[in-house]
């Protein structure tokens, strides 16, 4: 599966975009025949949708597929962790609780979606290194920094957060 992510990353990074076989082959530096086989296999397995337009087979992510969304969640978490963001937040906030919530935590995010993160720490202060990680991840980062989850006040936001994924630590209501 991990090897497959390399081929699927075009679709994971931009789930709404359609690619034809030749484009995928060029972007991933593989032969068109290999790309075609892989794309067909992902379509059969339910990760991708396919449609024909004249002589072209066009593929895009099947965002309604649970399989694709599960993989997308994994991909989002790995990207965040491998970017070094968690280490930088640890350095600044002293190992806070970090929760990924919103569309990215459901695997429903698209290219322009933000990564929404809740950071729970005694320290309430703006994290200065955000831009560096936004450039690295090619995403906007929205950080909600509170001392405790209750401080979010907005009921909708709290519900979103509790349905998120903890990247570090455990959320406590009290």
């Amino acid at each position, binding site marked *: 599966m991990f090897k497959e992510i390399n081929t699927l990353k075009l679709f994971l990074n931009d789930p709404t975009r359609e690619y034809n076989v030749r484009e995928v082959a060029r972007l991933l530096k593989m032969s068109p025949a290999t790309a075609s086989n892989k794309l067909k296999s992902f379509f059969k397995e339910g990760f991708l949708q396919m449609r024909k337009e004249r002589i072209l087979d066009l593929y895009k992510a099947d965002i309604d597929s649970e399989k694709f969304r599960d993989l997308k969640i994994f991909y989002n978490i790995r990207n965040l962790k491998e970017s070094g963001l968690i280490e930088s937040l*640890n350095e600044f906030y*002293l*190992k806070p609780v970090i929760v990924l919530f919103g569309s990215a935590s459901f695997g429903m995010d698209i290219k322009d979606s933000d990564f929404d993160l809740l950071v729970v*720490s*005694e*320290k309430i*202060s703006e994290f200065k290194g955000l831009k560096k990680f936004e450039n690295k991840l090619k995403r906007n980062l929205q950080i909600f920094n509170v*001392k405790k989850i209750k401080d979010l006040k907005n009921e909708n936001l709290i519900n979103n957060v509790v349905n998120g994924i903890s990247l570090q*630590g*455990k959320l406590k209501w009290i």
Partner: protein
Amino acid sequence: MDLKECLRKNLIKKTKIDRNLIKSLIEMANIKETTVKEAKLNKLNISAYVSLAYDSLRESLEALCISKGYKVLSHVCMGFLLRDILGNFDFEEFDRLRWVRNSINYYGKKVDFDQGKEIINKTFLIKKKIFEKYLK
């Protein structure tokens, strides 16, 4: 690292329950707590007192481990052991305090004054809960 590895590496050993040692450890933990509480905290010394507060908690937990028949030679292993034998031990919180203390002691991390004060309060709150539940 996990509990199995701690046991395999002999970082957790079975020991006899030594009441005098438990008493001494609790006394020392309390002396450290009093020292922190009576100290004049400021921006410069706050990190050192966060570290001392952690030592106070750790010594209480060491006393608790001995009362359960274990001698633990590593802080991280202490967390694993207590998570395993107490069931409701807040492992994440303790492990975070350990991380903060290590950042201060080994990497020269300076803690902000307000955050440091809150961490000290949290540390002593955990110590108090542990004491009331298991060491009274």
